Each structure stands twice: as C-alpha cells, then as structure tokens.
C-alpha cells in the first residue's frame, strides 16, 4: 500500500484493453496533483496563493498515483507502468454499474487512504464520481483543468463552466478531494521514470442496492465515420436556410472524406437529427479542418468545436462571433460559395485524374 498522499485515479480501458486516451490524460493530471500534494513547499506549486483556512488542509505525504481498473487490468499494465503507476487495483464487477463502481472507490479511498480521487470527465467518470460524492457526502468538482495545493494547504482548483467557455477558480474542501478532469485539460504525458506496476485484486463490500443499476451493452456499433473522430467536418447553421439546403454540405463533406455537423438551431428546428449537433449539448469534435458555414458562433456551439486544428468560416456577416474564433474566413453566402468550391475541387480532381489517365495511357 502507498502513502497518505496517494491520488486514486479511475482508468477506463479502450476496446483493446489498453488505456483510453481520456484516462491517460487523467493519469497525467493525477500525477501532477500527487506531486503538488507531496511538495514540501506549497508556494512553489502553480496554484494561486490563498489565505489558509483551518481544517481544510489536504493530507500531505509521499505522493504517487494508484489506478483503479474495472475489469481485466493485465492489458492496461504496460501503459500504467509507462505512466508511473506502481499500484493498480483490479475490480471485477461484471460490466458497468455506476453505484457499485463508486462503492469500490469509496472502499479503496478509505483503505489506502487516498488524498484525492480523480476520473476523466466522461459520462462514466462523471456519473461514478457523482455517486462517490453522494455516498460519502463529499463535494465533487467537475471538469477541472488544474488542481494543486495552495499556499495555505488548501486544494486550489480551476474548473470549467459553460463547457469550457468560462473558468472558475475555487477551493475544494473535503478529504479525499473528488475531481473529474476536463477533456482538454492536460495533454497525456508519460512519467519521467516508468514504474513496476503491481496489480492487486480488490473486492468491494457492496450494499444490496449498489447493483440495481447496471448496463447491458447492445452488440450494435455505430457505423460510418463518426462526428467525434472525423478528420473533416463541414458545419451548417441557420444560414443554410432550411432542411433542403444541406445537400450541398453533404456533397462537400463527401468530397473531403468528412461528415456534416450542425449548430443547435438546426436541430432545434428539426432540420437535421440531433446526433449531428456540434456543441455543448451535442458532440465535441476535434477535426483537422472545421468548415463552419452559416454558423454565427454562439458559445454553445464553440464549446463543441474549439478543439478543431483549423477553423474556416463561411459567413455573410464579417462581424459574426465565429469570425473571431476562426483561423480563416470567407465573407459570403454559403449557397454561392459552396457550389463554387465543389465545382473547383471536382475540376481539380478531374484534371488530376486526366493527368493520371494520360500517364497510364502513355507508358514509357
């Protein structure tokens, strides 16, 4: 067992059993937090100083991250080792059961003991941590971008509001500190030195009600290119004008190997299905290119697309908020610009195809 400043981190596994990227980021966040809690000089931590409040100090100690894996931990060991996790606890509860998972975390956190419990702010992570907060009576800070010990020993956190359009500086009381990590808070980074990871089986003491809710998974997997992982997204907003206007966006998305995404007004009007919505209440995208057409750029929308590598706006209004978030903009009506763009791409491809045909027809 590890020391009193252990940070317990929930690890979600990818389909191949390795660690999901969101959890690699959570492990990185947890390692920074553990180092801060163990730091002999809290003033050196990156958090802003604050007046000490008696009785709110976070437990100090040796530091370190312990991982919790719900399922078969063996496949996760290489990555856990790379991320400096010496102790991993494997909890086998036969699939997703949020309250039972939280009961396991509560037991582990008490036994270690843990100074903090951290999970990625996914649907599973948020749900399990909320259960942990409810069953322990402790506060829980959702979607944190940083957490570190302040000058007075209190835990200073920065968390997202409005899906990241606003940040909140706050002090999180209670031990263990319960934190979920915002999706884009930290980049995943392996530890300076890998650890020899020991896996311990952990059997939680469940209460009767803990398994009332458990998921069965349907065998169906979503087909096609997913909005969340598409390399190119062609976005359409109110400027598309109506449900009949999306053909040109579909054509362009097809030419670019991408998918169509839409703003909230489009789904609220019933022009397109909600699964195509990009935004705070829809899907978060992170494509190489986001071509936002006829979209004003409300914060509800931008919260879903700011992770795009490049944003190009097509909008009639040069003062639209989207223009101040985009890297490039074309000022104009999408119903004129997009058909011309499609024609230009087709002409260019035709020319390339012709050149290839020529080359094939005239060997040596």
């Amino acid at each position, binding site marked *: 067992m590890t020391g009193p400043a252990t940070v317990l981190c929930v690890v979600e596994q990818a389909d191949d059993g390795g660690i999901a990227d969101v959890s690699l980021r959570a492990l990185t966040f947890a390692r920074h937090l553990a180092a801060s809690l163990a730091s002999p000089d809290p003033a050196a931590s990156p958090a802003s100083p604050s007046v000490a409040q008696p009785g709110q100090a976070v437990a100090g100690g040796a530091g370190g991250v312990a991982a919790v894996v719900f399922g078969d931990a063996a496949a996760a060991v290489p990555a856990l080792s790379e991320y400096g996790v010496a102790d991993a606890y494997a909890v086998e509860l036969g699939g997703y059961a*949020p309250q039972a998972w939280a009961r396991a975390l509560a037991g582990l956190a008490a036994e270690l003991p843990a100074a903090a419990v951290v999970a990625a702010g*996914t*649907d599973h992570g*948020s*749900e399990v941590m909320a*259960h942990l*907060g*409810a069953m322990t*009576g402790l*506060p*829980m*800070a*959702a979607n944190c971008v940083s957490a570190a010990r302040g000058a007075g020993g209190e835990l200073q956190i920065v968390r997202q*509001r*409005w899906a990241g359009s*606003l*940040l*909140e*500086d*706050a002090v999180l009381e*209670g031990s263990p500190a319960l934190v979920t990590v915002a999706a884009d808070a930290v980049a995943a980074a392996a530890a300076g030195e890998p650890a020899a990871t020991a896996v311990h089986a952990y059997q939680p003491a469940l209460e009767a*009600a803990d398994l*009332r809710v458990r998921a*069965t*998974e*349907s065998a169906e*997997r*979503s087909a096609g290119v997913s909005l969340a992982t598409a390399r190119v997204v062609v976005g359409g907003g109110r400027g598309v004008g109506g449900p009949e206007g999306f053909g040109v966006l579909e054509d362009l998305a097809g030419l670019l190997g991408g998918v169509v995404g839409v703003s909230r007004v489009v*789904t*609220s009007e019933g022009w397109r299905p*909600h*699964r195509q*919505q990009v935004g*705070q*209440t*829809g899907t978060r995208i992170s494509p*190489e*290119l986001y071509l936002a057409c006829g979209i*004003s*750029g*409300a914060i*509800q929308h931008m919260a879903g697309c700011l992770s795009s590598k*490049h*944003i*190009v*706006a097509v909008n009639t209004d040069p003062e*639209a*908020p989207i223009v*101040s*978030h985009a*890297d*490039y*903009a*074309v*000022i104009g009506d999408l119903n004129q*610009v997009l058909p*011309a763009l499609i024609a*230009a*791409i087709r002409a*260019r491809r035709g020319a390339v195809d012709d050149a290839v045909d020529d080359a094939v027809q005239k060997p040596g």
Partner: protein
Amino acid sequence: MEIAVCVKRVPMVGGRIVLTADGQDVDTRMSGFTVSPHEECAVEEAVRIVEARGGSVTVLTLGPAAAADQLRDMLALGATRAVLLETDGREWGPIATAEAIVAALRGSTATGDRAVSAAGGPGAGDSAAVPGLAPGDPAATFPAPLPYDLLLFGNEAADTGDYQVPVRVAHALGLPCVTGIKHLEVADSRARARREYRGTEEIFDIPLPAVISVKEGINLPRYPSLPGRLRAKRAAIDRHEPAWHADGLRKERLRVPAGESKRAEILGTGPEAVPALVALLDELGVLS
C-alpha cells in the same frame, strides 16, 4: 404516472460571456434567460409520458423569484403544476441544491424553511417538516412515501455543469439512478433507458420509482400552444424558501479563458474567394 422534473434558469449567453465587475457572476443585464437545454427535453419527455399513460407533471426549480418565468414556460409546454424554491439570487452549490429538492419532493419543507416559518414568511404553517438530510447518510431513506414514480433531470446544467445533483437526490431518496439518457421507455413499474457511450449502446433496465437524467436529443421539444401559454400565465406557483448554505466547493472568481479572441484571415468575398480556399484546403492536406 406522477412525474417531477427539476429545471434550472440559466442565462442565454449568445456569442460571448460577459462577467460582472467583481468576477463572481455572468453579467445578465443584457441577456435573457432560458431553461437549461437538457432540462427542457426532460419536461417534454415527462409530458409525452403523461399524455400516453395519464398522470401529472410537476416542474420544480430552485432560483430567484424571476425563475417563475421559466416555470411558466414549462407549464406552457404541458407541465401540470410548478414549484419554486425561491432563493435570494445567490448561487447554490450542488449539495445544498439537492437537499432542497429532496425536501420539496417529499412534499414537506426543508429545515431552512422552519427559520422562515418562525419569521412568519412563506412556509409558515407547514407541519410536515422533515429533518435535514445529510447527503449519503443511509438514514436518509426516510419512511415518508415519495409521491412520484419518476424524477427527471437534465444531465448537467448549462452554466455550472456540476454533473451531480440528480445522483445526490437519488442517494438521499434511496432510489436507483441513471444519467445521460437519450432514449426512454416507461412501463408500469420499470423503465428501460438507453444511451451511447464510446460507440456502444448501453441499456439500463431499472425499477421505478427512479431518478433519470436526460440529454438533449432524447426528443425535440414542442413549441408551446397558445392555450398552453394562456393557462401557464394564470397558473398558481407553489413557493418555498429553503435556506442557503455553503457547499464544499468555494467559488473564488470566474474568468473568461485567455486567447479566446483572434481575428480570422479573410480569404475573400463570395465565390471569388474559392481559389484561395482551395489552396488552403490543399495546404491543410484535406484534398488528397
């Protein structure tokens, strides 16, 4: 089927968020307010269930007196009655919010109300006071029967995004809870709730009564009818004044993330910009 739906009044922030001078709140002097989007869908879902199966929909909010506007909007959508847990405008944390909701759902007053009662304010004369409930306390499963079969919430509020009020309410009431639901079927004593997680559909079969939080997309909320709006305008709203207390997450200040504002390079105007756009797409490697 008796359904209660909890909603939150949030600012309509539009293109950018402006903060008050002290950095404690969003400046709402220039914005309207709305019901947080997931929660509007929760009300629509409740109304559809009751239309199909009979029963009633109680919509409940914790917020300032002006939050009565949002309750009336939800009455216009088809909710049967409305309850306002009126605050003095201070922000409530998720623990205190859940406690106030639990007390209200039990059809009784929270501990804080007794202070109000003593002062002769609203809540005076309520006799069925329930002791304050420590969240997570197993003893919180108070024997008073819950007058609801289903409690619906939004998955998270648009503004504070705490992701926990429904779960805390479920624990205090000893009820099963599922969150983030995008498809719901309700039978007499059970519900089947579905959501997608990382490309896989998860299905939850749970007994009622239960707490279920939903996400936008579960349905497309209707536009209120004119008779609905007229009825909502006249409807009485049940008011309580729960007492605020601090949560364990103490807000120090809000700030807008740095580096938000940049200015796009204008490639051109109208179709004349297409050659420059094609060159850019080529440079980004998305034309191959």
